[in-house]
């Protein structure tokens, strides 16, 4: 039903390259940790004209979610979760139209300590596992819980620097079988300038001995921003 046009598959012309560079120069810029610029492709701030039910889901220890207004203006996503000793993880799933990005930034706050990590799924069955919060740079390289101080905190991931594992590459994952394959030690074949990420799973893990167990708690998301580092933005 779909046809390919192989004669176009290697089409990178000088004009196209020039145009791509111009695009990068024009595009809105996000700042990476090292201060270089990136082209923002997606930034969700929960404006009134978006229906978040189309792209937000929660599962496991999460009870549900809603979009709320800040007293001083602005909107945010509030996830309510009730972790239990046998159910420590809550999932927040962000569905995307398949998108290329290699930088992720999310601004969050929690009213109880919680570990944060995540996975990006592409539309070919590959999973890209993110370093947990802390290990990705914020906590001096150690996994630490998101501070429960009522302040917004950023979690930033850059591919491939902040990935811990990629699984499933090159294989169609059977819906009946989990564990699509061993982690791929060789990432050299992965083209981080040309991904099609279709969902991001945020893992919210309550510490096993947390006093929050059995109590409803909130984790808020102010925005999610997905961008491509300028150097990787376009072929």
């Amino acid at each position, binding site marked *: *039903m*779909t*046809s*390919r*046009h*192989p004669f*176009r*598959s*290697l*089409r990178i*012309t000088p004009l*196209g390259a020039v145009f791509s560079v111009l*695009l*990068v120069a*024009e*595009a*809105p810029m996000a700042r990476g940790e090292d201060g270089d610029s990136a082209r923002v*492709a*997606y*930034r969700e701030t929960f404006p009134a004209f978006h*229906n978040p*039910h*189309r*792209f937000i*889901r*929660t*599962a*496991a*220890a999460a*009870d*549900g979610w809603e979009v709320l207004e800040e007293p001083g203006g602005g909107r945010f996503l509030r996830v309510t979760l009730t972790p239990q000793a046998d*159910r*420590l*993880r809550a*999932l927040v*799933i962000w*569905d995307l*139209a*398949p*998108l*290329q990005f290699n930088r992720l930034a999310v601004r969050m706050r929690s009213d109880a300590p919680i570990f944060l990590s995540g*996975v990006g*799924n592409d539309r*070919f069955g590959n*999973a890209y596992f993110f370093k947990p919060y802390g290990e990705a740079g914020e906590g001096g390289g150690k996994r630490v819980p998101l501070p429960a101080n009522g302040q917004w905190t950023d979690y930033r991931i850059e591919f491939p620097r902040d990935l811990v594992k990629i*699984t*499933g590459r090159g294989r169609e*994952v059977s*819906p*009946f079988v*989990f564990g699509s394959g061993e982690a791929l030690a060789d990432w050299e074949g992965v083209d981080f300038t*040309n991904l*099609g*990420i279709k969902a991001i*799973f945020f*893992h919210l*893990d309550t510490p096993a001995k947390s006093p929050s167990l059995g109590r409803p708690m909130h984790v808020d998301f102010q925005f999610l921003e997905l961008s*491509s580092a300028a150097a990787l*933005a*376009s072929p």
Partner: protein
Amino acid sequence: MNMPATEEDFDRRTGCVSAWSLWGSMRGLFALLMTLVLIGLSAPCLLASPKPGMATLTASEATRKEMVYYVWNTGDGRLVPTAQGFAEASAKIEIPWFEKGRFSPAWRSVGLSGFTSDSQPVRAVTIAETSARPPALPVTLTASAGGKSQSLSANPGETIVWDGLRPGGEWEPSFLVVDLGKPQTVEWLVLRPATDGLPFPRHFLIESAVAPTGPWYPVVSANFPFFPDPAGLDVWIPLRGLVAGALRVVVPWVDAPAAGWTLAGVDVLGSGEPLLQPGGTAAGDLATWNNLWLNFGVAANEVHQKFDPWWETDRPLDGGMVCIGSCEWFAWGALKVSWLEAEANPDRLEELIARNPVDAEGFAWASGGSDKHLGHSRHFTTNALYATAVAHHYLVRRDRAFLDAKDPKTGETILSKARRAMDYQLGTLGGRSGLLTLPGKEHDGTPESAGTNYWDFWLFGYECAYTNAFFYESLRVMAELEEALGDTARAEELRALRPKVRAAFNDKFWNPATGRYTGWIDAAGVSHDFGFTFVNAMALAFGLPDEAQAAEVLAWLDGTRTVEGDDSTGADIYAFGFAPRANTRDARHGTPPPVNTWNGALKIEPGGNSAFGKMIQNGGAIFYVSYYDLHGRRRYAGADNAARRFDGIQEEFAKDQLRRDPANANGNSDVVGILREFPESGLVPYYFVDGLLGLRPAARGMLIAPALPTDMPSATVSDFYFSGKSWEITADRTAKQPHVEGRDVTVPASGTWLLTPEGQVVESHD
């Protein structure tokens, strides 16, 4: 497929793995189904040639893995963007030309991350005949950003005098509202770039509304991040018959904090007659009927990730689709597309029907590649649905070549296969006795069986009300076909069987204890009555109950009668608004529950991913059931009763155009069935055609038996293709006699009329 990451992704303590197994399984099964369909399609689809003045252009950006859209430079001063889709798919778009000549189109692809290709020329297009350019509609414009708004003067074709918009912040949305004054049919929104001042919007999307006060709905095919500089060319955004009272250009963000955007002009082209015209009703009704059809009938302004409306699209862009190429959908597909003049969708259906096997025993396979649905179990509805689809399609289009078309593998004609499909019901399944009985242990309806129809969570089987209801309907439609072909003896045989089937249906499936039909009776004699609204709605729509039985069913559905033991009663039965819950009694009440849990992936206990009310087949709802619900009400409780039910649907449509697939607490977005692999959602607006107007094909022609609600003085369908010609058909309370003039047919709003293939209208006593 929307896949879980891997098992490492889940802490075993979450208990969430099986939930995601279900999610992946269901999506995976759908992909499998489509694969099986494809196995039967060994040749490319034979799509119809475009109309004169139109050209089909094809683009494919095979290198990108993200979604892309294409911007066509048509070579005549226009840029025409497409919807988004997978880069490797072949993106076709039909574009009209308004002047003769030879043009050199070229496309650029734009990835959602901002990747933009260079221009790719394609073969030149020669336009010998032109399309009629739709006229520009008068509009008023209002620009707004940061809470401030500005009215703009904008006669069609004139340049707007303004300085453009500078939002207060980089991520502050800004808007240009285009007020059309009243709901009108819109074909194109043309944005003209300015030659100086601020640039053309870099990122924008289009929304529509009944009125400029909103609520606003996204036109999902018109979402253009990183739109390339149009370089002075007008940007023509196709809206394909959208009925709107207002449009809105939304610029969700700009490139820099001080950046802005402007347009030199905005033209809205359209004003043609809406396809569906409910007379005397509120403006919103006109928009609801037409946009329900646009979104879920022909799925014209949807995102199709394979650039093909016969394939599904994943969250978050899932929407309407035309049909699924499996036999399970053929009869519904025929209802949806047989009456369409544009040939692409009818041709596609015909090809699938031709290729779908009816095996040596006479069983109609689920798809070209398998006798079993999803390779899992036989669905014994396929014979009725195959025969019904063939008969309906022929009786509408009257193209004998369709019946004579041959299965490319066996050489057997479609007509022969349809007749054998009927024979299988009559013989192998025992239909001549008045009751189909499904054979084999796998289909015996017991807890060990595998399910036998669309509702495959439930273990329908053996003596199955759902299958027998479709059998009853197939007898009616096939009798009409046989009579139309001159085989009156066969027609009479089939018609004579219907009272027997109806009696057997009521004798076997009516449950006097609950005042409704049970779902099935298994081989051990156990009746499974879980308050299946879809079974009962179908039974009423097909005319199976008597008046008293129908009244009992409707009293139960409307909540004025409570059935003891039900979990959903009263107003809760229609809690979803757009359709009744699939069942009113939780599957857990079965001992054991008569359901297929897919090896435990489905958990029906409270808190489980398929708990009552949290899954489409167990207390959730599927939109298409409303089509049968409306027909049942029309038949037994009258047009006004059906209209009140439609009001409930309209109320939900007004919220979000039913673009919803909410997830349950387990993250499964299978609570309701409206979008994605539910093209049968388009049956609901088809009720305008075969319910309000009462258009139903019969042997001697097209029956017109209007059933207008009291507050609707007339109803018109402006393009109904019947017997080789497109008709405009109106039922009018003021008309005393039927009237035909050219392609326009008007009949009184009461009585039953027959439009013959020769174009005459006579009173019918059918």
